[in-house]
Protein backbone atom coordinates (compact mmCIF):
# COMPACT_ATOMS: atom_id res chain seq x y z
CA UNK A 1 0.00 0.00 0.00
CA UNK A 2 1.38 3.39 -0.97
CA UNK A 3 1.40 6.00 1.74
CA UNK A 4 -0.32 9.28 1.18
CA UNK A 5 2.24 11.62 -0.21
CA UNK A 6 2.31 15.35 0.22
CA UNK A 7 4.86 17.73 -1.08
CA UNK A 8 6.39 20.03 1.44
CA UNK A 9 8.24 23.05 0.17
CA UNK A 10 10.91 24.04 2.60
CA UNK A 11 10.32 27.72 2.90
CA UNK A 12 11.33 27.63 6.51
CA UNK A 13 13.49 25.28 8.40
CA UNK A 14 14.82 23.14 10.45
CA UNK A 15 14.96 21.75 13.93
CA UNK A 16 17.72 19.33 14.75
CA UNK A 17 17.10 17.25 17.84
CA UNK A 18 16.19 13.79 18.95
CA UNK A 19 12.64 12.61 18.67
CA UNK A 20 11.01 9.35 19.58
CA UNK A 21 7.97 9.47 17.40
CA UNK A 22 6.59 11.15 14.35
CA UNK A 23 3.62 13.45 14.05
CA UNK A 24 2.30 16.65 12.57
CA UNK A 25 2.48 18.77 15.66
CA UNK A 26 1.88 22.36 14.60
CA UNK A 27 0.20 24.28 11.84
CA UNK A 28 -0.17 27.84 10.66
CA UNK A 29 -2.66 28.69 7.99
CA UNK A 30 -2.60 32.11 6.39
CA UNK A 31 -5.87 33.09 4.82
CA UNK A 32 -7.51 36.02 3.17
CA UNK A 33 -11.18 36.90 3.21
CA UNK A 34 -14.15 37.58 5.38
CA UNK A 35 -15.06 33.93 5.86
CA UNK A 36 -12.02 33.26 7.98
CA UNK A 37 -13.69 34.79 10.97
Amino acid at each position, binding site marked *: *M*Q*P*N*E*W*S*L*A*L*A*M*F*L*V*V*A*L*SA*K*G*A*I*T*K*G*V*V*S*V*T*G*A*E*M*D
Partner: protein
Amino acid sequence: MRDTIARQSDVDKRSIKYEVEPGSGEYRNGTITFAAKKGKSIDLQKLQDSIRATRLSENTRSGVNYLEITVEGEVVVGEKETLLKVRGKEQQFLLGDDPNAKPEQGKKTPCQRLKDALAKGKKIASVTGRVQGWSGRWPVVLRELAGKAARNTKYSSP
Protein backbone atom coordinates in the same frame (compact mmCIF):
# COMPACT_ATOMS: atom_id res chain seq x y z
CA MET B 1 -11.86 28.73 9.16
CA ARG B 2 -10.93 29.13 12.82
CA ASP B 3 -14.04 27.16 13.83
CA THR B 4 -13.26 24.42 11.30
CA ILE B 5 -9.79 23.98 12.77
CA ALA B 6 -11.20 23.99 16.30
CA ARG B 7 -13.56 21.14 15.37
CA GLN B 8 -10.69 18.83 14.45
CA SER B 9 -10.48 16.07 17.05
CA ASP B 10 -6.68 16.07 16.99
CA VAL B 11 -6.25 19.84 17.49
CA ASP B 12 -5.80 21.37 20.94
CA LYS B 13 -8.51 24.07 20.95
CA ARG B 14 -6.65 26.11 23.57
CA SER B 15 -3.66 26.38 21.23
CA ILE B 16 -5.53 28.23 18.50
CA LYS B 17 -4.41 31.81 17.97
CA TYR B 18 -5.94 34.12 15.43
CA GLU B 19 -4.43 37.32 14.12
CA VAL B 20 -5.74 39.54 11.38
CA GLU B 21 -3.97 42.50 9.83
CA PRO B 22 -5.39 45.89 10.76
CA GLY B 23 -7.92 47.62 8.56
CA SER B 24 -11.55 47.33 7.63
CA GLY B 25 -11.46 45.52 4.27
CA GLU B 26 -13.24 42.19 3.87
CA TYR B 27 -10.24 40.46 2.30
CA ARG B 28 -7.51 41.19 4.80
CA ASN B 29 -4.83 38.60 5.52
CA GLY B 30 -5.03 36.66 8.73
CA THR B 31 -3.15 33.79 10.31
CA ILE B 32 -4.49 30.97 12.44
CA THR B 33 -1.90 29.08 14.48
CA PHE B 34 -2.76 25.74 16.01
CA ALA B 35 -1.13 22.71 17.62
CA ALA B 36 -1.94 19.03 18.02
CA LYS B 37 -3.26 17.62 21.24
CA LYS B 38 -0.55 15.93 23.28
CA GLY B 39 0.35 12.62 21.64
CA LYS B 40 -1.81 13.30 18.57
CA SER B 41 -0.94 14.07 14.98
CA ILE B 42 -2.95 16.51 12.91
CA ASP B 43 -4.61 14.72 10.01
CA LEU B 44 -4.26 16.96 6.95
CA GLN B 45 -6.72 14.92 4.92
CA LYS B 46 -9.43 15.33 7.55
CA LEU B 47 -8.70 19.04 7.83
CA GLN B 48 -8.98 19.38 4.07
CA ASP B 49 -12.25 17.38 4.03
CA SER B 50 -13.70 19.57 6.80
CA ILE B 51 -12.87 22.77 4.95
CA ARG B 52 -14.41 21.34 1.76
CA ALA B 53 -17.65 20.72 3.68
CA THR B 54 -17.98 24.47 4.36
CA ARG B 55 -19.05 27.26 2.04
CA LEU B 56 -15.39 27.86 1.23
CA SER B 57 -15.68 25.15 -1.43
CA GLU B 58 -18.31 27.23 -3.20
CA ASN B 59 -18.10 30.58 -4.87
CA THR B 60 -15.92 32.83 -2.74
CA ARG B 61 -13.10 35.27 -3.36
CA SER B 62 -11.41 34.35 -0.12
CA GLY B 63 -8.42 32.10 -0.19
CA VAL B 64 -5.43 30.57 1.48
CA ASN B 65 -1.94 32.04 1.25
CA TYR B 66 -0.16 29.04 2.72
CA LEU B 67 -0.41 26.13 5.14
CA GLU B 68 2.76 25.72 7.11
CA ILE B 69 3.24 22.62 9.23
CA THR B 70 5.82 21.20 11.57
CA VAL B 71 6.33 17.49 11.10
CA GLU B 72 8.27 15.23 13.39
CA GLY B 73 9.50 12.22 11.54
CA GLU B 74 12.32 10.38 9.88
CA VAL B 75 14.07 11.94 6.90
CA VAL B 76 15.10 9.50 4.19
CA VAL B 77 17.37 10.72 1.40
CA GLY B 78 17.03 8.74 -1.81
CA GLU B 79 18.83 9.07 -5.12
CA LYS B 80 16.18 11.32 -6.60
CA GLU B 81 14.13 12.60 -3.70
CA THR B 82 14.12 13.36 -0.02
CA LEU B 83 11.20 12.03 1.99
CA LEU B 84 10.00 12.73 5.47
CA LYS B 85 8.19 9.74 6.89
CA VAL B 86 5.83 10.06 9.81
CA ARG B 87 6.47 7.01 11.92
CA GLY B 88 3.48 4.78 12.50
CA LYS B 89 1.43 6.64 9.89
CA GLU B 90 0.85 5.96 6.25
CA GLN B 91 1.85 9.47 5.43
CA GLN B 92 5.01 10.85 3.98
CA PHE B 93 6.18 14.16 2.65
CA LEU B 94 8.27 14.78 -0.40
CA LEU B 95 10.66 17.53 0.61
CA GLY B 96 11.84 20.19 -1.77
CA ASP B 97 12.83 23.82 -1.87
CA ASP B 98 10.10 26.35 -2.30
CA PRO B 99 10.27 27.42 -5.95
CA ASN B 100 9.07 30.88 -4.93
CA ALA B 101 11.71 31.37 -2.25
CA LYS B 102 14.87 32.99 -3.57
CA PRO B 103 17.87 32.08 -1.39
CA GLU B 104 20.41 34.81 -0.77
CA GLN B 105 23.37 34.64 -3.08
CA GLY B 106 26.03 32.27 -1.79
CA LYS B 107 23.71 30.74 0.79
CA LYS B 108 22.48 27.18 0.66
CA THR B 109 18.86 26.34 0.16
CA PRO B 110 16.97 24.63 2.99
CA CYS B 111 17.09 21.33 1.09
CA GLN B 112 20.87 21.57 0.68
CA ARG B 113 21.21 22.38 4.38
CA LEU B 114 19.06 19.36 5.21
CA LYS B 115 21.22 17.05 3.12
CA ASP B 116 24.40 18.55 4.61
CA ALA B 117 23.09 17.99 8.13
CA LEU B 118 22.24 14.38 7.36
CA ALA B 119 25.62 13.82 5.71
CA LYS B 120 27.29 15.01 8.91
CA GLY B 121 25.36 12.38 10.81
CA LYS B 122 22.90 14.76 12.44
CA LYS B 123 19.52 13.43 13.41
CA ILE B 124 16.67 15.45 11.97
CA ALA B 125 13.70 15.43 14.31
CA SER B 126 11.33 17.83 12.66
CA VAL B 127 10.89 19.87 9.54
CA THR B 128 8.79 22.98 9.10
CA GLY B 129 7.59 23.81 5.64
CA ARG B 130 4.68 24.82 3.49
CA VAL B 131 2.47 22.21 1.95
CA GLN B 132 2.36 22.36 -1.81
CA GLY B 133 -1.03 23.13 -3.27
CA TRP B 134 -2.34 25.20 -0.35
CA SER B 135 -2.26 28.53 -2.11
CA GLY B 136 -4.97 30.30 -4.05
CA ARG B 137 -8.70 30.90 -3.94
CA TRP B 138 -10.38 28.33 -1.67
CA PRO B 139 -12.68 26.72 -4.26
CA VAL B 140 -9.79 26.15 -6.68
CA VAL B 141 -7.41 24.94 -3.97
CA LEU B 142 -9.97 22.50 -2.52
CA ARG B 143 -10.89 21.15 -5.95
CA GLU B 144 -7.26 20.53 -6.89
CA LEU B 145 -6.40 18.97 -3.52
CA ALA B 146 -9.41 16.64 -3.87
CA GLY B 147 -8.16 15.58 -7.30
CA LYS B 148 -4.71 14.89 -5.88
CA ALA B 149 -6.19 12.82 -3.03
CA ALA B 150 -8.24 10.80 -5.52
CA ARG B 151 -5.11 10.07 -7.55
CA ASN B 152 -3.32 8.92 -4.37
CA THR B 153 -6.22 6.61 -3.57
CA LYS B 154 -6.24 5.26 -7.09
CA TYR B 155 -2.64 4.11 -6.75
CA SER B 156 -2.92 2.87 -3.19
CA SER B 157 -4.60 -0.45 -3.92
CA PRO B 158 -2.66 -3.42 -2.57
